């Protein structure tokens, strides 16, 4: 008997017992209305999180002590792996990632139980039922179908090691961030379900769901940016987003969450979009479950998916059940979700927000269709096809541009109503500058319509947002008497949600400029070279000096081949490849990037011979660094928007019950 595996499994089984107890206690509460019972149910959720955490610690211990009698440890770890890299082994593979997912879910639900549950007396028992069912739904496959603590009949001498693509420092943050982001959508879902079950359909649930949705938005965005960075620096194809089915699964829940963050404001302020807000939150969670199914079904081909598919049907069934219950409850309560009032005018922020959320949902549906279609094609026709980047670029491109245009106009629109002349006055300067820019771009020979309209829209978003900062900073300056620059910073103290959101908009505009520039104007060349050969690219002479080989012997790396390339006789870069002992057919690129704010020269060693001949694949990516700058601004904005502002903290301190909004 393996004590470690038995202990890990016992923690999981006890955790499942706790969730079942929690479910039973909250159900009995509806008959007895005993508060102690509800409190027990709530604490059981917290205990479940603790038990799953112990289970995760047991797995970490097994990995650190190289207990290869456990199948998961033997399949994702090896003796020569550095201890810090074993963190990635925890969530690698089918069972490990499910353990991590369930652990993250339990932690979020425990924090929710501690922080938010006491404030929602109207829906606490309903929320506990939802939480217990969700935890049980993930613990059941973890215990019965794909346990991470299964013991092997034969204990191998050494493990297979981590998947080569995961042997990267970025992998220590990217998958956990993404998994946590997907899991975190469970909290707004729990709140929406509680509202539907309890019939409390005013803004009470929205007020709590907002901060949790902001957290999901933040973590999911960080996960996606880190994924793009990882793809750019590790995969060696010169790009950052390949519209891979699993990448799509990661961005899909982010879109309805972003839509909800916009439209919830309308419900809180105006009592409109009640049904729409619930739909968005339910859709976000269903899409997060879809992502779990997508990675584990074995139906989609992706660099991120797991080959095994035993639990694919289970997650498909779970997705079906969650979708069915969500839609059924929504239909049942539809009459109670009618708006409190009508719009005052079509020329209002409300209209901008409606358009924004509807465009985001159109993008979601298109991406979902493109992601699912290969499965349908294989099921119905028996033909395996690939829906690649050209499809997604062509179909979602116009929608993204539409979104940018709505973003720029929406910021200028006030609540309730405005006049056309007032709107024109506000838009005048950004519009004029953007048109002049397009004119100059035409003079400089850029005639591609997609490029021009994207740059125009992104510039509009930038200018409109900067204009808001400038004008409102001026007002702040008059109040505080501080210099304009300081006054603009002061704005964040007055309303972090709003100005954090504006920073996110600036980030999005910069990202749009980076994407269209690097996509349209990317150039590439392939050079076969002998030692001492040179080639010229982007105005710089690049000389191939020599090929070297090293044997790091850690993390399963058997060999590192590096080509020494000199730039203009000054700087040295080392593109190469990393080879792995147990994965001979999975070399991983060591990408060398010679970058400046205008362009990256991205060098990838595609092949080499024993005689020292090499083949280099070189990409020149214009303005790509704006993507990372835009991403950083976006994340800072999301953090500021998430951090409670002084105003809302004061409201809480003054004792105004948050659910009475």
């Amino acid at each position: 008997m393996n004590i470690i595996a038995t202990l890990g499994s016992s923690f999981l089984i006890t955790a499942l017992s706790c969730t079942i107890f929690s479910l039973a206690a909250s159900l009995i509460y509806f008959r007895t209305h005993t508060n102690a019972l509800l409190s027990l149910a709530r604490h059981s959720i917290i205990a479940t999180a603790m038990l799953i955490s112990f289970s995760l610690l047991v797995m970490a211990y097994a990995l650190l002590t190289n207990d290869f009698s456990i199948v998961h440890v033997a399949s994702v770890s090896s003796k020569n792996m550095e201890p810090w890299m074993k963190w990635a082994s925890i969530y690698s593979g089918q069972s490990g990632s499910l353990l991590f997912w369930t652990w993250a879910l339990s932690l979020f639900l425990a924090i929710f139980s501690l922080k938010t549950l006491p404030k929602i007396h109207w829906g606490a028992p309903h929320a506990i039922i939802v939480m217990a069912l969700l935890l049980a739904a993930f613990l059941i496959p973890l215990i019965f179908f794909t346990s991470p603590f299964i013991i092997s009949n034969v204990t191998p001498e050494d493990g297979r090691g981590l998947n080569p693509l995961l042997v990267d420092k970025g992998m220590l943050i990217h998958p956990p961030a993404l998994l946590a982001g997907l899991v975190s959508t469970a909290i707004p879902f729990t709140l929406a379900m509680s509202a539907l079950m309890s019939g409390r359909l005013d803004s009470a649930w929205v007020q709590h769901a907002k901060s949790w949705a902001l957290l999901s938005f933040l973590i999911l965005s960080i996960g996606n940016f880190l994924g793009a960075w990882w793809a750019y620096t590790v995969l060696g194809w010169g790009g950052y987003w390949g519209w891979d089915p699993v990448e799509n699964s990661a961005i899909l829940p982010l879109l309805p969450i972003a839509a909800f963050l916009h439209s919830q404001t309308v419900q809180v302020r105006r009592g409109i979009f009640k049904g729409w807000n619930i739909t968005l939150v339910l859709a976000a969670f269903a899409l997060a479950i879809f992502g779990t199914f997508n990675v584990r079904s074995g139906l989609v081909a992706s660099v991120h998916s797991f080959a095994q598919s035993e639990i694919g049907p289970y997650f498909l069934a779970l997705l079906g059940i969650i979708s069915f219950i969500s839609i059924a409850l929504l239909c049942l309560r539809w009459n109670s979700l009618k708006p409190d009032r009508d719009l005052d005018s079509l020329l209002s922020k409300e209209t901008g927000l409606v358009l924004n959320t509807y465009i985001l949902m159109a993008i979601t549906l298109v991406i979902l269709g493109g992601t699912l279609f290969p499965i349908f094609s294989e099921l119905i026709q028996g033909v395996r096809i690939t829906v690649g980047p050209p499809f997604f670029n062509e179909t979602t491109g116009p929608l993204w541009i539409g979104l940018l245009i709505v973003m720029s106009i929406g910021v200028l629109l006030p609540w309730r109503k405005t006049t056309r002349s007032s709107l024109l006055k506000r838009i005048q300067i950004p519009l004029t500058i953007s048109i002049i820019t397009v004119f100059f771009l035409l003079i400089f020979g850029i005639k591609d319509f997609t490029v021009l309209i994207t740059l125009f829209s992104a510039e509009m978003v930038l200018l409109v947002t900067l204009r808001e900062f400038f004008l409102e900073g001026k007002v702040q300056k008059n109040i505080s008497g501080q210099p304009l620059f300081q006054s603009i910073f002061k704005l964040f103290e007055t309303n972090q949600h709003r100005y954090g959101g504006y920073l996110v908009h600036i980030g999005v505009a910069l990202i749009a400029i980076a994407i269209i520039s690097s996509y349209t104007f990317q150039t590439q060349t392939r050079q076969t070279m002998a030692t001492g050969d040179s080639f010229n690219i982007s105005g710089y002479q690049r000389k191939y000096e020599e090929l070297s080989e090293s044997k790091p012997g850690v993390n399963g790396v058997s060999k590192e081949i590096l080509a020494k390339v000199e730039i203009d006789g000054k700087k040295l870069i080392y593109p190469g490849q990393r080879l792995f002992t147990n994965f001979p057919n999975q070399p991983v690129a060591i990408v060398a990037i010679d970058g400046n704010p205008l362009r990256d020269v991205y060098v990838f060693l595609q092949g080499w011979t024993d005689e020292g001949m090499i083949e280099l694949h070189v990409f020149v990516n214009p303005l790509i660094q704006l993507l990372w700058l835009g991403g950083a601004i976006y994340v800072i904005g999301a953090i500021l928007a998430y951090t409670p502002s002084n105003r809302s903290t004061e409201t809480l301190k003054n004792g105004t019950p948050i659910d009475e909004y």
Partner: protein
Amino acid sequence: MNINWSRNKLTCTLVTFFIFFLMQSTTFAQISDRHEEQALSIEKQLLCPQCTNERLDICSIQICIDMRKEIREQLQDGHNSDEIIFYFQNRYGQRVLAELPRSGFNIVLFGWVLASIVLVTLGGSYTLFRLNQKTNIDWK
């Protein structure tokens, strides 16, 4: 002036030959460059038949190296892009096409895209229309 015609003839012949050689090599280089450009463009339109959504131009496995070589050989034999792509599609199936053909069953997907956009547009318009029944835009 004593002109050595035979010497000049030799010079002229050499210069002409040199210019011709230069022109030929430039033309050859241009053809070669054009072929390389064309080859890269074809590679971008194809996917690795064994990997997972990996473009041919960036794939390092042997089958992709062989496919890239074959593209260059076919270009030298005078085949055009469409013929080469069609050749690989026949050999490995539709999954090697980076761009989804807008024909056959694939029309369903493009129909889905259209339906999604129409649905969302109608939904948005209906919501705004319903909420705005009692109000008018102030165009002043």
